[in-house]
C-alpha cells in the first residue's frame, strides 16, 4: 500500500512536469515567477534536512541551523554574485558548473573534466544518502514499533526498494531532463515539479511539527517546560553541544555558505534554470524565509522525540516515529511522502547536473578525440549525444545505489551530507575568485582544485572509509607510518577542532593558496585573457559581446557540422538570418560563426564547441588580440568618459566662479566710482564755503569787525571739518587696504567707556541730550588699541546723540558681560532704524534720511560724514569683535552694539605669546 502511494506520488510528478513542459511549448511558462524560482532553490533541503536536521538537533544542539544560515548569507549576496553568474551563463550558454569554470579559464577541456570528476566522486555519496533515506523511512513505516532492522547487504538487490526507486527516478529524469539536446535550455517541467515538491515537503514538515507541539503536548510552553525538567536535555541546546565550539560554529557556517554556491544542483537551479534575472531579488529573501519555516519545528520535534521515544531510537527517524507512536496512520504517510519529495527532488536535479557534466566534459571530449568517430561516420550525432546523457543518468543513479548498498549503513545521514558539502566547496575558489579576479589562471585553478581535493580526500574521505572498516583505522589515531603530525583528523597537530572545520581550513588553504600563488607566476593564454575579462566585467552595462571569429569557413561546412551534432531544426535556427538560396561555398559572416559556437556550447559545453568550430574554421580562427583590445577599449572609453565628465563639470564650476568674480569686480568698480563721486562731493561742500567766505573777506574790505571775525571762524571750522574728513577717508583707505596699524594692548573697557563719556559729556549737554551710563562690571579686560576704541565709542555716542528724539533726547551707554565677551551698547530714543536699513548704515557715506521732517520742527542735526560707522566696524573687526544694530531694549530707538572678546588672563597670554615666539625646531 505504502509503495503504491509512493509510486502514485511519482506519477503525479510526471503529470506536473508534463504539464509544465506543455505550457512552456505554448509560451505560457509556469515557472516565470520569482516565487517558483525561490521554491526551486529549495531543492537545497533534501532528505538530509527532512530527517537529518532533527537528528542533528538532538545530538549537536543548534548547529543544524548553520546549514541554513550559510545559504541565507549567500542569498543576501545573490544580487551581486548570482546575478553576475546568471548574466555570464546566459551570454555564454553555460550548461553546468563544470562548464562555467572551464569557460572562465579559457574554455579548458581539462579543467572541465577535473570539475566533473570531483563532482562525481564528491556528490555520489549524497545521492546514495537520499536513496538510503527513502529505504530507511519506508522500513520504519512498515516495521514500527519494531526497529527497522535493515541489513542492506544481506538483501538481494531485487528485494531492495531503493533499487527500484532509483530506476523509476532514472526514467523520470530521462523523460524530463533530456528532452532537448541543448542543456542550457531550461527544463521547465522539471523545475515546476521541483517547486511542487518543495511545497509538499514544507507542508509535511509543518504538519508533523504542529502535531507534535499542539497534540502531543499542550503548546510550546508545555513542551519546553517538560524538556527543561528532563536531565538528559540539560544543556542540549547550548553552544557546548556544538562540535568544535565557537570554531566549529564559524567553520560550519562558512562551509554551508560556500557549498550553497558551488553544489552542482544549486548551480543548476540558481543559474542554469533561471528564467529572468529579476527573480533573484525576490528569491534573496523568500528562500531564506522558506528555510526559516522548514526549521521552525526542528527543535520541538527533537525535544519531543527524546522526551517520549525509547532511548535507543534513532533521532534521524523522530519525524516518523513520533506520529507513529501516537497510533496515527495518515500523518506518518504524509511525512513519508514529504521525505520522498525531499529525496527525489534532490536526486532529480543533481543527476541532471551531473549527467550534463559527465557527458559534456568526460565522455564527449574522449569521443571527439577518437579518430574513428571524428573522421568516419558522417551520420547524425545528435541522437548519440542524447543517448550518452541518458546512459550517464542511469550510471550515476546506479553508482549512488551501489555506494548506498555497500557502505550506506556505516554513516549517519548528517555525516555523508557534510562530507559532500566539503567536496563541493573545493569549486568555490575557482568559481568566486574567477568572477572577481582577472588574474586567476587556468593552471592556478587546476592545481588549486587538485590540491584542495587531495586534502579533502585525506582528511574526510579516507577516514570515513577507515571507519566503515574498509581500511585499517590505525592511521587515524597514530598517523600513517606512525607520523603523528599527519593524522587525518589532526593535521600538523591542529587538534580540538571538529573534523569538518578542520578539513575545510586545510583544504581551502591548500586550494586558495595554490590558486593565487600559481596564478601570480603563470601566464594566461589569449583566450583565457578574453574570457577572464568577459567574466569579471560581466555586469558592465555597456559590455558588448564581440564577435570572436575572424577566420573563414563556408556555409556548407558549418551547416554540415551543426547538422551532425544538433540536428536540422537547431541548425536552421542558427542560419535564420541568412537568405535561403545562398550557395554552399559562400563565406559565412563572423557573427553566424559565433552563433554556431554558442549553439554548440549549449549542447556540448564550451570546451568541445571550441574544438569543433576550430575544426572547420580556417586561418586565424580567433582574432583574440582584437577582442582584447575591444574589451580594453571599452573599459578605457568608460574611464575616459568618466574623466571627461568630471573635467567638464570642473570647467562649468570654474566658469561659474569666474562669472561671479566678474560680477563682484563690476560691483566693486561701481562702488569705487560712487565713492570717488561722494568723496569729491563731500570735500567740495566745505571747500566751497571756505572759498566763498575767503572771497568775501578779500573783496569787501569795509566789513564790520565782528562780521569779519564771524567769517574767519566759519573758515576755520570748515577747514577743521575738511581735515577731519580727509583724516577719515585716509583711515578708511588704510582699513580697506589692510594697512591700518593698530597697537593692541590689554585695557579696561569700563574705564575707557567712562573716559569717552566724559569726553563727549559737554558737547551732548550743549545739545540738550541726557546721557546715562550703566556699567555693570568694574573690570572689563579686552585687547584693543585704546585710541581707536575711544574713537569708536565716541563715534557711537555722537551718532546716538544726533538721532535721539527731538523732545527730551536721551542716550544710554551700557557695558555688560555676555558669554565670554563684553558688550558695549549705545541706545537712543529716536525713531530707530528699519530692519532693511540695518546693514546699510555701515556703508560708506550712507546718511539716514531724516524722518519727522513733515512735523516742521526738525531739530537741527549736525551733519556727519557718513564714514564714522564703516570705520568703527572696520576697527572692531580688526580687534576680533563685531558691531551691529538692533532694537533698543530700554529706550525704544536704535541700539548699536559692539562686542569684544574677553582678554585671556595674564599668565595665559604670556604662554600664548611664548608659544608663538618659539622658533620652529627645523
Amino acid at each position: 500500500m505504502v509503495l503504491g502511494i509512493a509510486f502514485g506520488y511519482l506519477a503525479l510528478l510526471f503529470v506536473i512536469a508534463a504539464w509544465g513542459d506543455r505550457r512552456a511549448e505554448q509560451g505560457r511558462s509556469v515557472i516565470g515567477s520569482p516565487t517558483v524560482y525561490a521554491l526551486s532553490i529549495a531543492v537545497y533541503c533534501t532528505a538530509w534536512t527532512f530527517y537529518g536536521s532533527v537528528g542533528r538537533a538532538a545530538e549537536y544542539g543548534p548547529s543544524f541551523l548553520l546549514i541554513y544560515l550559510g545559504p541565507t548569507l549567500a542569498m543576501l549576496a545573490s544580487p551581486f554574485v548570482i546575478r553576475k553568474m546568471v548574466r555570464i551563463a546566459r551570454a555564454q550558454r553555460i550548461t553546468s558548473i563544470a562548464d562555467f569554470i572551464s569557460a572562465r579559464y579559457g574554455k579548458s577541456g581539462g579543467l572541465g573534466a577535473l570539475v566533473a570528476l570531483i563532482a562525481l566522486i564528491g556528490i555520489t555519496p549524497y545521492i546514495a544518502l537520499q536513496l538510503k533515506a527513502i529505504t530507511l523511512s519506508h522500513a520504519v513505516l512498515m516495521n514500527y514499533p519494531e526497529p527497522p532492522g535493515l541489513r542492506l547487504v544481506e538483501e538481494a538487490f531485487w528485494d531492495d526498494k531503493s533499487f527500484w526507486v532509483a530506476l523509476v527516478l532514472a526514467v523520470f529524469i530521462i523523460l524530463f531532463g533530456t528532452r532537448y539536446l541543448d542543456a542550457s535550455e531550461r527544463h521547465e517541467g522539471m523545475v515546476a515539479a521541483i517547486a511542487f515538491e518543495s511545497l509538499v515537503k514544507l507542508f509535511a514538515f509543518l504538519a508533523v511539527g504542529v502535531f507534535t507541539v499542539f497534540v502531543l503536548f499542550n503548546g510550546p510552553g508545555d513542551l519546553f517546560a517538560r524538556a527543561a525538567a528532563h536531565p538528559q536535555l540539560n544543556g542540549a541546546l547550548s553552544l557546548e553541544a556544538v562540535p568544535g565550539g565557537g570554531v566549529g560554529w564559524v567553520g560550519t557556517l562558512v562551509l554551508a555558505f560556500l557549498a550553497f554556491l558551488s553544489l552542482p544542483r544549486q548551480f543548476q537551479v540558481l543559474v542554469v534554470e533561471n528564467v529572468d534575472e529579476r527573480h533573484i531579488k525576490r528569491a534573496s529573501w523568500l528562500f531564506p524565509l522558506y528555510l526559516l519555516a522548514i526549521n521552525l519545528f526542528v527543535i520541538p520535534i527533537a525535544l519531543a522525540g527524546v522526551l517520549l521515544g525509547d532511548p535507543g531510537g534513532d533521532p534521524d527517524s523522530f519525524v516518523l516515529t513520533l506520529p507513529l507512536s501516537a497510533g496515527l496512520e495518515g500523518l506518518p504517510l504524509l511525512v513519508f511522502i514529504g521525505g520522498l519529495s525531499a529525496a527525489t527532488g534532490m536526486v532529480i536535479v543533481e543527476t541532471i547536473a551531473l549527467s550534463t557534466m559527465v557527458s559534456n566534459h568526460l565522455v564527449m571530449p574522449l569521443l571527439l578525440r577518437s579518430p574513428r568517430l571524428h573522421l568516419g561516420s558522417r551520420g547524425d550525432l545528435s541522437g548519440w549525444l542524447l543517448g550518452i546523457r541518458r546512459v550517464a543518468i542511469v550510471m550515476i543513479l546506479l553508482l549512488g545505489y551501489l555506494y548506498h548498498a555497500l557502505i550506506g549503513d556505516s554513516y549517519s545521514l548528517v555525516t555523508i551530507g557534510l562530507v559532500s558539502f566539503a567536496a563541493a566547496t573545493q569549486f568555490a575558489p575557482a568559481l568566486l575568485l574567477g568572477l572577481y579576479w582577472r588574474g586567476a589562471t587556468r593552471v592556478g585553478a587546476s592545481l588549486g582544485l587538485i590540491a584542495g581535493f587531495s586534502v579533502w580526500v585525506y582528511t574526510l574521505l579516507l577516514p570515513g572509509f577507515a571507519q566503515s572498516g574498509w581500511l585499517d583505522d590505525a592511521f587515524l589515531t597514530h598517523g600513517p607510518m606512525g607520523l603523528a603530525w599527519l593524522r587525518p583528523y589532526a593535521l600538523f597537530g591542529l587538534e580540538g577542532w571538529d573534523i569538518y572545520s578542520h578539513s575545510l581550513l586545510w583544504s581551502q588553504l591548500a586550494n586558495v593558496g595554490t590558486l593565487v600563488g600559481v596564478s601570480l607566476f603563470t601566464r594566461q593564454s589569449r583566450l583565457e585573457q578574453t574570457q577572464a575579462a568577459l567574466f569579471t566585467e560581466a555586469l558592465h552595462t555597456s559590455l558588448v559581446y564581440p564577435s570572436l571569429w575572424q577566420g573563414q569557413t563556408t556555409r556548407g561546412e558549418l551547416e554540415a557540422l551543426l547538422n551532425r551534432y544538433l540536428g536540422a531544426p537547431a541548425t536552421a535556427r542558427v542560419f535564420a538570418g541568412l537568405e535561403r538560396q545562398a550557395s554552399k561555398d559562400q563565406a559565412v559572416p563572423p557573427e553566424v560563426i559565433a552563433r554556431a559556437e554558442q549553439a554548440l556550447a549549449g549542447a556540448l559545453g564550451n570546451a568541445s564547441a571550441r574544438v569543433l568550430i576550430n575544426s572547420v574554421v580556417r586561418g586565424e580562427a580567433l582574432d583574440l588580440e582584437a577582442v582584447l583590445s575591444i574589451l580594453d577599449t571599452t573599459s578605457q572609453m568608460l574611464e575616459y568618459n568618466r574623466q571627461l565628465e568630471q573635467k567638464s563639470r570642473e570647467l562649468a564650476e570654474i566658469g561659474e566662479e569666474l562669472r561671479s568674480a566678474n560680477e563682484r569686480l563690476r560691483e566693486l568698480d561701481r562702488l569705487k566710482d560712487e565713492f570717488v563721486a561722494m568723496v569729491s562731493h563731500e570735500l567740495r561742500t566745505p571747500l566751497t564755503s571756505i572759498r566763498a567766505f575767503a572771497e568775501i573777506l578779500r573783496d569787501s574790505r569795509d566789513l564790520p569787525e565782528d562780521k569779519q571775525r564771524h567769517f574767519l571762524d566759519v573758515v576755520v571750522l570748515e577747514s577743521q571739518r575738511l581735515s577731519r574728513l580727509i583724516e577719515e577717508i585716509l583711515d578708511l583707505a588704510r582699513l580697506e587696504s589692510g594697512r591700518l596699524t593698530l597697537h593692541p594692548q590689554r585695557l579696561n573697557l569700563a574705564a575707557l567707556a567712562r573716559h569717552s563719556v566724559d569726553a563727549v559729556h559737554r558737547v551732548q549737554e550743549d545739545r540738550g541730550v541726557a546721557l546715562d551710563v550703566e556699567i555693570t562690571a568694574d573690570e572689563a579686560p579686552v585687547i584693543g588699541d585704546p585710541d581707536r576704541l575711544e574713537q569708536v565709542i565716541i563715534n557711537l555716542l555722537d551718532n546716538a546723540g544726533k538721532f535721539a528724539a527731538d523732545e527730551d533726547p536721551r542716550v544710554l551707554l551700557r557695558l555688560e558681560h555676555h558669554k565670554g565677551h563684553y558688550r558695549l551698547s549705545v541706545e537712543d530714543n529716536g525713531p530707530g532704524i528699519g530692519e532693511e536699513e540695518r546693514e546699510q548704515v555701515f556703508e560708506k557715506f550712507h546718511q539716514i534720511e531724516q524722518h519727522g521732517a513733515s512735523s516742521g520742527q526738525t531739530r537741527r542735526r549736525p551733519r556727519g560724514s557718513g564714514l564714522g560707522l564703516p570705520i568703527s566696524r572696520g576697527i572692531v573687526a580688526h580687534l576680533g569683535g563685531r558691531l551691529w544694530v538692533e532694537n533698543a531694549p530700554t529706550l525704544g530707538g536704535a541700539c548699536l552694539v559692539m562686542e569684544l572678546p574677553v582678554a585671556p588672563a595674564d599668565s595665559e597670554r604670556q604662554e600664548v605669546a611664548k608659544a608663538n615666539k618659539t622658533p620652529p625646531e627645523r
Partner: protein
Amino acid sequence: MKTPRLGERLVALIVLAVLLFSPPLILPFDRATNGGLSWLPLYLFLAWGVVIALAAWLMEHRHDDQGGA
C-alpha cells in the same frame, strides 16, 4: 543594483547578518533559562527573522524609497 544606495544598504545588511550569526555576538545569548535550556536557538530564530524582514523590505520597497536613492 539600479541605485548605488541599494547596493550599499545590501552590503550593510550582509555585514549585519554575519555579525548576528557568529560567535562574539551569539555568546551572550548562550545562557541557560531557569529550566536549563539555552536561549541561543530562540535568539538565532529572532535574528534570522529580522534579517529576512529587512532584506524583504530592502528588495520590495525600493520604489517608495527613491528619495533616498
